[in-house]
């Protein structure tokens, strides 16, 4: 409660709170007037009927179908010897959640106990090694929480954000594994690519006034064209990325940190080369071997599709949102057409189109497998909705921000990147979380185009003669799983928003 207000305070006192006895409360809210009583009776009737039916059924249900098939429901046909990588990503997320909680929320709240209860419950219901894995997740969450509390708030916040941003690429990398073409030349191409980029950074940072570095980039490009594959593609990428890095370094050469960064990167180049030439191969052959996307399945596939969808639709969506607000009529028209087209058709038609049309639209040698096609469909779909969300954030930025940035002498690009977008994106975080949840739910639609996500796996489990007649158990389990994931995410994001004060400034 608030502090007792002194007599001189001009602050308005809160209105007096009504106090009831228990019976008085029941009487007032449930029993009077007559229509309220009627409502109470009807509600009670519904509640009793629902609970009676559900509990009666749940006690007789054949729940053993779930533990018997839990692995295939969770990861599909993901190779057993690599399942530890999925566990590793769970441990990582436990750590990151614990750490962020420690940094941002700090207090022990009821929700914290609920969150901690998740691994505890899972450890209790599981048997064998899975129990210990969940206990490890619990321990990591607690350690993360302690470390997060111990960290200073400001720095801890930065660290937590960095961890969240890094988590998703690391998750994808862990699950997918590493794998590059088998040709022996790739190590040399990578070494040269890295060299070009590092040299560009150094040149831009130390000699920003020298424009002839660009000639070097052109030379790299020309060399690529002359040498042919695999050098052509590799050097093309190296020249483009190198040019961009060089330009960026030139522009920010006046900043103190840039020279230090260039130095650090140069120093890191040698260990990187050693890694590429000596450590990469054993790693990618043994325990980080690539798991092809046709082995992704179960809930893992749903989560992967959602993560890929959000990761790639985000930049695309921002681009479309900016395009829709652009002053260039052609760009604006294109963006509007794309966004309205995608939002006007059902998701399943986009998925269907991705499955059917991509193989036709691309040349035969660029074949993409089904999972990747589905992911591309998801990205196309999510980008349009993302664009609308981001546009909402952009529209909420007052005009004064643009004018102030202009008055400070920032260019249009700088205004957008440094002033407008950070504020706009920060404001739409809650909406984006909502979209992510919606996307996660929508990933079940890939079943319809024949992928083995959790719903597809459930269907194949149910066609097994042993488990005929357990549809309700399996589908209810899937529904509850999604409920826990979605509700948990939306709850956590709401708490974090409150802690971060999003939308309150």
């Amino acid at each position: 409660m608030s502090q007792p207000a002194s007599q001189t305070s001009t602050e308005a006192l809160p209105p007096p709170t009504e106090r009831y006895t228990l019976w008085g409360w029941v009487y007032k809210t449930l029993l009077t007037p007559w229509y309220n009583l009627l409502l109470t009776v009807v509600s009670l009737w519904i509640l009793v009927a629902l609970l009676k039916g559900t509990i009666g059924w749940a006690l007789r249900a054949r729940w053993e179908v779930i533990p018997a098939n839990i692995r295939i429901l969770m990861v599909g046909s993901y190779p057993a010897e690599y399942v530890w990588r999925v566990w590793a990503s769970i441990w990582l997320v436990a750590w990151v959640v614990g750490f962020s909680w420690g940094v941002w929320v700090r207090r022990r709240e009821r929700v914290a106990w609920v969150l901690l209860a998740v691994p505890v419950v899972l450890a209790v219901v599981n048997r064998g090694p899975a129990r210990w894995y969940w206990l490890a997740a619990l321990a990591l969450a607690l350690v993360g929480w302690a470390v997060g509390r111990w960290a200073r708030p400001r720095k801890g916040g930065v660290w937590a954000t960095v961890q969240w941003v890094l988590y998703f690429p690391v998750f994808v990398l862990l699950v997918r594994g590493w794998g590059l073409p088998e040709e022996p030349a790739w190590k040399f191409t990578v070494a040269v690519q890295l060299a070009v980029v590092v040299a560009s950074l150094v040149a831009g940072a130390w000699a920003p006034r020298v424009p002839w570095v660009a000639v070097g980039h052109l030379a790299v490009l020309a060399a690529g064209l002359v040498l042919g594959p695999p050098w052509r593609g590799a050097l093309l990428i190296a020249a483009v990325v190198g040019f961009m890095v060089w330009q960026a370094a030139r522009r920010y050469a006046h900043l103190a940190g840039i020279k230090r960064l260039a130095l650090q990167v140069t120093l890191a180049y040698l260990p990187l080369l050693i890694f590429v030439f000596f450590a990469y191969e054993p790693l990618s052959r043994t325990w980080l071997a690539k798991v092809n996307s046709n082995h992704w399945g179960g809930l893992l596939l749903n989560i992967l599709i959602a993560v890929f969808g959000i990761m790639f639709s985000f930049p695309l969506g921002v681009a479309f949102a900016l395009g829709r607000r652009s002053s260039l009529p052609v760009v604006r028209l294109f963006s509007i057409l794309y966004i309205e087209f995608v939002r006007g058709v059902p998701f399943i038609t986009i998925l269907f189109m991705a499955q059917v049309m991509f193989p036709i639209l691309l040349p035969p040698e660029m074949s993409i497998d089904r999972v990747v096609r589905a992911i591309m469909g998801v990205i196309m779909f999510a980008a349009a909705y993302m664009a609308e969300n981001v546009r909402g954030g952009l529209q909420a930025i007052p005009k004064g921000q643009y004018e102030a940035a202009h008055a400070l002498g920032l260019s249009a690009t700088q205004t957008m990147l440094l002033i407008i977008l950070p504020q706009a994106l920060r404001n739409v975080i809650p909406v984006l979380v909502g979209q992510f949840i919606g996307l996660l739910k929508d990933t079940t639609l890939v079943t319809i185009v024949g992928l083995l996500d959790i719903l597809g796996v459930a269907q194949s489990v149910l066609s097994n003669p042993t488990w005929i007649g357990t549809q309700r158990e399996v589908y209810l389990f899937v529904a509850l799983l999604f409920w826990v994931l979605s509700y948990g995410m939306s709850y956590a994001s709401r708490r974090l928003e409150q802690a971060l004060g999003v939308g309150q400034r």
Partner: protein
Amino acid sequence: MWRDLTWQNFWRDERFLRVFGQVVFVVVVLVVGRFLYVNMYTALEQRSLLPDFGFLNTVAGFDIGEVPSFIDYSGASPNKMAFLVGLVNTLRVSALGIVFATIVGVIVGTARVLPNPLARGLATAYVEFLRNVPLLVLLVFWYRGVFIVLPRLAETPLVWGRQDLPDGKFRAWLILSNRGMSMAWPVGTESWPAYRLWLWLAVLAAVAVYVGLTWYARRTGRAPLTLVWAVAAFFAVAALGFLVVQATTGQAPLRWAVPQVKKRLVAGGLKLSPEFLALLSGLVIYTGAYIAEVVRAGLQAVSKGQIEAARALGLTTFQTLRFVVFPQALRVIVPPLTSQYLNLTKNSTLAVAIGYPDLFNVAGTIFNQTGRSIEVIVIIMGVYLSFSLITSAFMNWYNRKIRLVER
């Protein structure tokens, strides 16, 4: 760093850059488009499937489980008739779904702002559960876990109003089994054509009352319940006609067709397949949860002061609702509500997972039969796009109509 500001290099001139940027953009789009088009053309040419809508007139060659009574469709009908059947099925399930979802949503949304904790808690649980579960899971659960595991007709179907008939037959007002639902339904008798005239008369009467009351309201400044009176006029004339026709021809124009069960067959009444029921109920309870949120937001958007002010001015509870709360709440409710309706229509494509022959399902079958990918995609996307264009046209019109007149 001084530059002569009166003259710039033309590549730094913003007017040039704007045009140049757009040209580059168009060129990139065209190049990518041409790349895709050329690939598509060669791929389709190899399979001799170049876009051609002639397949619409060839024989479909497959049966559809549910064909509306007014369409004459069989396996020998052309593909365009199959598309039509799918379209009508989509419209049927969407229209019914919209009606029922609105009812559910309004009830649940209102319950969420009531002071009664039991009703509020129940409504909150409903909304929070359904909004966090994928619709497809819900539909599949509903279909494979509920509707097709209902008792068989030969066993003990769930019935309401059962009357036993001789030799093992029985009839009932409502029969629910694993074959779907059959229920009693009014059908026209021989005196129906005479009654149809009366129905037209009733429509005329309703329109007349509506126009008359609107004119009266404008003239006197009173506010009669125009729509209620118009509907009442319709039913009054219709009821009168019913009695008159019955008295003159000696036969009621409508009678109940009651479903009758013999062994494993149901005859008579209105038959609804389990696929249709599962799709409809799944869509209704899912969209109902979203509509409930829309309704709740609308009701909570009307500030308490408005209601108190209306009461202070002496308006009755009903008047407060009618003149103060509803107009303001509707302004908040209608735009998201229409987008929920559109979502429901788009979500009805999930029918393909449970085998209800909606447009997308039929189109998928036709694609599998003919291999005509582009044409099929163009048709389904065109249909759904026109749905959303119509909806957004309505929305723009409505927004213009209810825009606050600022003074």
